[in-house]
């Protein structure tokens, strides 16, 4: 899911960077309204938590294992705007310090994983769990469905971003200058892996974590102060 440098054209990177600026501004305002001065330690530790979720290998059928992104779980716990900032912070650290995900592609990566993923996931969760008590089984199902929808929506956007490159940026003889596969290849390739494999890792992690948090009496984000 992390797009490296060199896969997207500079123009695409600039467009997504420009799209993310008002989103980050709105996220800062929303978080400031709910958390005020507490936001720095809360978001820093939330971001570290979302980073750490990626370190857990989840065993899946066949003896293999994979790791989750955890963006929807963070959105269920902190709210989608705070999750947007927390995942952005995690992505900036990954790109700048560990070379995971491109620096020029940071806008696109944040759009997919810090905006599309937590927002789609959170609103699917909210729609399914609407009106249910915080300890209900419906919340677990809603968390799993939200996680699946969020990661697949993010993969769809990443596929579209890859697929647009050869259409928009090529030489006179048709040679692709950036990601070489069009929408007909990039979108199914990105979606298939997430629909069949990665999406289920996300479902397992999010649903089971919500189940355990319910048992421990954790308070989930309900739209106001978390």
């Amino acid at each position, binding site marked *: 899911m992390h797009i*490296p440098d060199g896969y997207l054209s500079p123009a695409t990177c600039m467009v997504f960077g420009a799209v993310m600026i008002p989103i980050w501004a709105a996220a*800062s305002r929303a978080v400031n309204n709910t958390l005020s*001065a507490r936001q720095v330690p809360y978001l820093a530790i939330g971001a570290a938590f979302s980073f750490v979720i990626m370190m857990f*290998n989840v065993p899946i059928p066949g003896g293999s294992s994979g790791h989750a992104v955890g963006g929807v779980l963070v959105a269920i716990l902190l709210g989608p705007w705070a999750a947007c900032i927390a995942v952005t912070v995690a992505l900036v650290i990954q790109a*700048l310090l560990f070379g995971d995900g491109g620096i020029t592609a940071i806008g696109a990566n944040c759009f997919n994983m810090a905006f599309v993923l937590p927002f789609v996931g959170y609103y699917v969760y909210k729609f399914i769990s609407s009106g249910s008590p915080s300890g209900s089984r419906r919340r677990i199902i809603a968390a799993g469905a939200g996680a699946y929808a969020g990661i697949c929506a993010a993969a769809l956007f990443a596929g579209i971003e890859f697929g647009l490159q050869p259409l928009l940026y090529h030489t006179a003889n*048709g040679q692709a200058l950036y990601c070489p596969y069009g929408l007909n290849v990039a979108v199914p390739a990105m979606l298939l892996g997430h629909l069949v494999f990665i999406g289920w890792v996300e479902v397992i992690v999010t649903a089971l974590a919500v189940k355990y948090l319910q048992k421990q009496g954790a308070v989930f984000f309900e739209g106001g102060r978390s």
Partner: protein
Amino acid sequence: MSNPLHKKHDFIERSILSALAFLKDATLSEEYANRKGFLQSLDPRFKTISFLAFLVTAVSLKSAILISPLYVLCLILALLSRIPLRNFLLRTLFFIPLFSLFIVLPTLFSVVTPGEPLWSFHISGINAIITRPGLDGAVLFVLRVATSVSLVVLLSVTTRHSELLKVLRLFGVPQLFVLTVSMCYRYLYLFATMVENIFTAVKSRVGVVSHQRHGQNVVAWNIANTWNRTTQMSEEVYMAMLSRGYTGEPRLLSKFNATPKDWLWLLSAVVICAFLLYKGYSL
């Protein structure tokens, strides 16, 4: 001799190894940043601006011939900065560029990229033709990705992470965000150790083999447990910040000092980028 069944179900071991690899990687990076080399001697602000200029140039160029000097520059800078070339090549070529090479392979052939045939051969009775546009496109793509990854790795391993994060202020990133990033980085180390301890405790109780379903429950329980500890910790950290006079307006200390060497380096970087971009434009 290791039991394949153990290997198959050993998700705990794999998680611990990932955590340790992550920790070691971070530590190793700081190790290079503390060495006395050329890039380490530069002001982090000038170094970051110059590397971003190189990165934007590498991503903007549309010719492998023009990108290759930037890749050679990376290798020279790695040597001048006392980074063992073998380690640098392993770190920069092994994962992302190798993966890029793998995904770009089908574009070499005429089925995906039609054009002037360069080389043809038979695989299981099928005539495979590698075309010139296919080869040119693949070389350009992989070289650009390898150069970009090399530039980012060089910047991150030769700069102390705390300084690199402070440089974000240069680009108009709000102070609050920079402080959040810096704090997050410090907690990563603590959390990674916490995860490692949790898994060591689990391993000491359940052994190596664990059923897949049980394994999933262990992971989910640990994530939930980590969350509970993080919320507790955020309250404690906030109280500690208040007790030290935090008012909601963060202040970052920066002690960057630019020397003529830094200005000369920046000027050289700008000249190199401008020259390559001009050449790329006139091609």
